[in-house]
């Protein structure tokens, strides 16, 4: 399970709206402090969602550039984190569209497991596991059960089969079909 980014730095994040307002006024020191403080939670956000670690630095930098370009759209009545993760999410999807399409069929099983264990969409949604629930809801009940048992709980095919009253081969076939459906959903959703 991925924890909420920057949970332990609540005091720092409370200052972010003020820092951004100061940055809008041209305060470079406040702006640099803000960008330095938001970088670790952005990395955590990406690490929780993104599977290729090599890309994280690139995407973080793209997000920082996007935040810079869109800084005038932040308004104090809007929660800063929602605004920031709105930019981050958009840039992440944009990046995946740009560089991920050519490897669209190459989501591997480890990546799928990472996604399934991840409940962090935005930090606020992390506790709800909204995306994972949505993805799993696309699957028929049997496939969902097999996938959770074999990929998340870590049961072997034989153990899962025993629990579900299925043969090992049937579990393998069901897991394969479920994996394929989940991958299709991930691609459609822009992962």
């Amino acid at each position: 399970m991925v924890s909420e980014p920057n949970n332990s730095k609540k005091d720092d994040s409370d200052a972010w709206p003020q820092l951004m307002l100061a940055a809008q006024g041209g305060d470079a020191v406040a702006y640099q402090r803000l960008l330095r403080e938001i970088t670790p939670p952005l990395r955590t956000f990406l690490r929780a969602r993104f599977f290729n670690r090599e890309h994280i630095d690139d995407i973080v930098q793209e997000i920082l550039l996007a935040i810079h370009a869109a800084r005038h759209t932040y308004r104090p009545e809007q929660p800063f984190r929602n605004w920031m993760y709105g930019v981050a999410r958009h840039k992440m999807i944009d990046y995946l569209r740009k560089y991920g399409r050519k490897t669209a069929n190459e989501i591997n099983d480890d990546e799928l497991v990472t996604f399934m264990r991840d409940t962090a969409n935005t930090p606020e949604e992390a506790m709800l596991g909204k995306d994972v629930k949505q993805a799993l809801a696309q699957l028929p009940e049997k496939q969902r059960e097999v996938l959770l048992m074999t990929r998340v709980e870590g049961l072997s095919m034989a153990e899962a089969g025993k629990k579900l009253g299925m043969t090992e081969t049937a579990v393998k076939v069901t897991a394969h079909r479920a994996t394929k459906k989940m991958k299709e959903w991930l691609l459609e959703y822009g992962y």
Partner: protein
Amino acid sequence: MSMDTDKLIASLGQDLKPVKPMAGAGTLAFILATLSLAATFGAIAIFTKGIRADWEVMFNEHVCQTAGIFFAGILAAYAAFRLSVPDTRIRNPVRAILALASFIWVLLIAGQIGAEPPEAGYRNCLTDFSLMFIIPFAAGIFMATRGAPVWYGWAGYALALSVGSFAALGMRFACPNEEPAHLLVWHYLPVVAFAIVGIGLGQILLKRKK
């Protein structure tokens, strides 16, 4: 933090210039509505024979209809500008607002269905509608790109629905034909058609790199 990211942050700090925060969605919707209505009635004055003589009668008889069109325009404009600011929490509220604006148009169109086909010879209405649409839509796109839209297609749809609504409102004051079938084909369905085209235009025009 990697060195590259450190350097980037230092560079962004050095390049920092003061910016004026973008106006709120309500303010921008009000500006677009005012602009659209001004352009619409300007187009009526310049390109048509002016406001219909019996506009007061029409307005009194169809006050709910005209109010509905205006309300749909305002709602769609508000949704368009909410979609112009990044936010992880806007999807559902904006969907509801857009659904309401679209639902008003479904009701308006459903109210005209079943009428006899319109007489030929009213294609001018579509030309007038287009003239009332183009400038406010271009202005709306410009205003939206001053923000940072992330759902291009939906923002384009909302803008087109809004501007189309105001153009349709203008048409009610310009065209004296009250046949339900005429209203359906030449005044109301163009709003839907333009809104659908707006999805594609939004994806092209709002995606521009800054």
